[in-house]
């Protein structure tokens, strides 16, 4: 009896000490659920704080070794590229992670791993647009689309990483032509978020918009009937199916260089790509799970299967600053 009490209190004190600290740029209810589930399963306490990706990277940089963060979570592979360049991440060797996360969605040196995916698709007005005009991202520059195209501003990471992927596959000149060509086809100045582009299609301001799938998923399941109405008129084109595939961006996770609770942090990384966790991520936020054993939500599944760009993201994100500059030079807002 005495022994077991001792063991129990030891265990308790161990459980109390076991914790991980997360800096996250994601802030979805799904994430909070995951933290709770992880706590219940392992007894490891999860503390998290949120800010924008760039701010958190700077914070990690300024704090240096004295940082209390063990993990860094953010959307957009470009952020991980910056973080790695600033030397605030460390590589992780984990068979689980390497087995589950496909090569194109993790860093070559294990400095970051995807946890979910978002496809950058082309949405069109089902009421009056013939989708056969568009097969590839490159088709967005066709003169037939003049005055019909809608997109958010070049400061959106989704757009810069898309352009970076075009640079990676086609080169700078083609990318520059693409930036100019799409700009010339815009129905209005780039502004608002992805949903605003969808609403503009509904309002008849344009007929084609570059969007992320999960926004359409969120709108289809919105509490606001008007949002559902908007999303229902949208058709989805997965571009570049006959060649490199549709561009996919990620949310991901990385171990910080200053991590003090390394072992538990890696446990969390492995947990978050486990089928159990992936189901929660995919179910609530309409993102694609990175674990292929898990199906996407029904809403997203209805868009159909598609071929994903197989170029590793770690390669294309190196072109992000070039992409930002090309947009500027082309005169994008």
């Amino acid at each position, binding site marked *: 009896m005495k022994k077991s009490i001792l063991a129990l209190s030891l265990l308790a004190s161990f459980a109390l000490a076991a914790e991980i*600290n997360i800096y996250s740029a994601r802030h979805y209810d799904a994430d909070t659920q995951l933290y709770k589930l992880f706590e219940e399963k392992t007894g490891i306490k999860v503390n998290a704080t949120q800010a*924008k*990706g760039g701010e958190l990277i700077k914070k990690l940089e300024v704090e240096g070794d004295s940082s209390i963060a063990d993990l860094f979570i953010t959307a957009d592979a*470009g952020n991980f590229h910056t973080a790695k360049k600033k030397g605030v991440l460390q590589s992780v060797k984990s068979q689980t992670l390497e087995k589950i996360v496909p090569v194109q969605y993790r860093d070559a040196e294990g400095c970051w791993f995807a946890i979910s995916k978002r496809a950058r698709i082309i949405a069109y007005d089902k009421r009056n647009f013939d989708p056969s005009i568009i097969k590839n991202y490159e088709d967005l520059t066709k003169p037939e689309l003049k005055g019909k195209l809608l997109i958010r501003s070049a400061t959106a990471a989704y757009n810069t990483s898309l352009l970076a992927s075009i640079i990676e596959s086609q080169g700078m000149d083609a990318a520059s032509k693409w930036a100019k060509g799409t700009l010339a086809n815009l129905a209005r100045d780039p502004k608002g978020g992805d949903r605003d582009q969808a*609403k*503009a299609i509904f309002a008849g301001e344009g007929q084609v918009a570059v969007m992320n799938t999960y926004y359409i998923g*969120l709108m289809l399941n*919105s509490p606001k009937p008007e949002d559902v109405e908007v999303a229902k008129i949208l058709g989805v084109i997965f571009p570049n199916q006959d060649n490199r595939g549709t561009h996919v961006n990620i949310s991901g996770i990385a171990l910080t260089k200053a991590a003090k609770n390394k072992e538990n942090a890696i446990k969390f990384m492995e947990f978050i790509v486990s089928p159990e966790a992936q189901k929660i991520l995919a179910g609530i936020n309409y993102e694609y799970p990175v674990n292929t054993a898990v199906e996407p939500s029904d809403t997203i599944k209805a868009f159909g299967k598609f071929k994903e760009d197989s170029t590793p993201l770690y390669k294309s994100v190196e072109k992000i600053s070039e992409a930002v500059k090309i947009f*500027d030079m082309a005169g994008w807002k």
Partner: protein
Amino acid sequence: MNIKFWAITVALIILVPIISIFFEIAFGDYSNLEHFFKYLFLRYIQGTFLVAFGVLALSATIAVISAWIVANYRFPFANFFEYALMLPLAIPAYIFSFCYVGIMEFQGYFHKIFGFRLDFMNIYGAIFVLSLSLYPYIYMFAKTSFKTQSKVLFDVCKIYKLSQFKIFKVAVMLSRPAIIGGAMLVLMETLSDYGTVAYYGVTTFSAGIFKLWFDLGDSYSASILAAMLMVLVFVIMIFEHINKNSKGYSFNTHNIAKTTAKSELGNIGKILAFLWCFVIFCLAFLFPVVWLVYWSIMTIQDFKLEFITMAGNSLLMAIISAILITFISFFLVFSTRIIKNNKLNTFLLKTTSLGYALPGASIGLCVMIVFGYIDRNFGTQFLSASFVVLIFGYIVRFLATSVYAVESGYAKIPKNIDDASLLLNKSKFTLFFKVHLPLLRHFFFLSLIVVFIDIVKELPLSLILRPLGFETLSIRAFFYATDERLYAAALPSLLIVLLSLAAVIWLEIISRKKA
């Protein structure tokens, strides 16, 4: 120790993070700057000037006319509007901009009622939204000033049979320190705004700072832009300071106790005054709040108990910081009265106010650099695990609001009162507590209210500098909104508005009781 020593010390401590931006510059590589100046600079400068000019003109017009009407005339609901017109201050500009997009979008209320749409997401929309959310700064300052204007002066005006319009002009001239003080706050808020301009696709200087920092991952070049913005604002401040000091403003208020009596308006006048106030109130408060309430009800099932904790967090931080900041600014402004060295005074008041013009994220960056240095070298963990950093950040950013409130009050106390008091061998301590503070009671509360609300609404600083696991309402609202989940953002946004409202009403009651 004398006052001068302490004033300089306090000012320097507040200045450290602002200056650290120049150190950040010294260690950067500038490869992105050339690109920025070549392709973007002109566009960003243009955008900044247009937005700043538009917001200043529109908000000053709304504020001064409204303040004049409610301070001087009796008309239906005049008392209600006197306070109601301050309320837009309770709505953060970024939430304002989301509300108006919601109202003006296709199938929004405007479209449903009028059958057509106005494109709102552009520079005009940004000017409109920023003006409506910021005019209360000028309004509150102007109103307080109009109400405490000497009755004797207006008696003189009446003897000369000046028209109402001319009296208005005289009053505006006399209230210039207060109006310009408010306008400076509006200008600085506009320059530092990021949420609205980014959402509406307007290119301003602070958008440029974020572009360099976040899009190009280059916080060094971003710091250079921030420093440029700071220098620009400093120049404007000095200009304003010299201009203010060249006029002998303190003559106007020998008789503060005798405030002007409100006069009766004719029937048409009453209707016009009512309509003016009603329209402003609807546009700047009622419409967005109704929209928020509606969406809060629709999403009430998403209400979480943690919202209460967040509200508590917001409240606590705002109260502590508002008191600290008001205390510091009173000390600084009082010191400048005693020191009487114009250059040193300019330094004390203006440089410590610079934080207000920088985007919150840049201030956050500066404060982070300073405490990061301390943490790394002294083995402390201020940055990730304490409120000291956050509160310090608030002080650096919001001292200006308080300083302008207090200064505009001090401008009304003739300096010979100080001399008289000191000549009578009263201590400086007595002068402050027995003479100045009673005279400045209104401005003391004004400072508390404005700073409190500023902090409840504040976003980027809280985002970057808060300790692990600490969350405020504005952070939650912002996260929902950036995810384009505007409806989910309604509930926490509404709580922010209610919290600020409670503060305004509570402080109003207190200041009346003691009046």
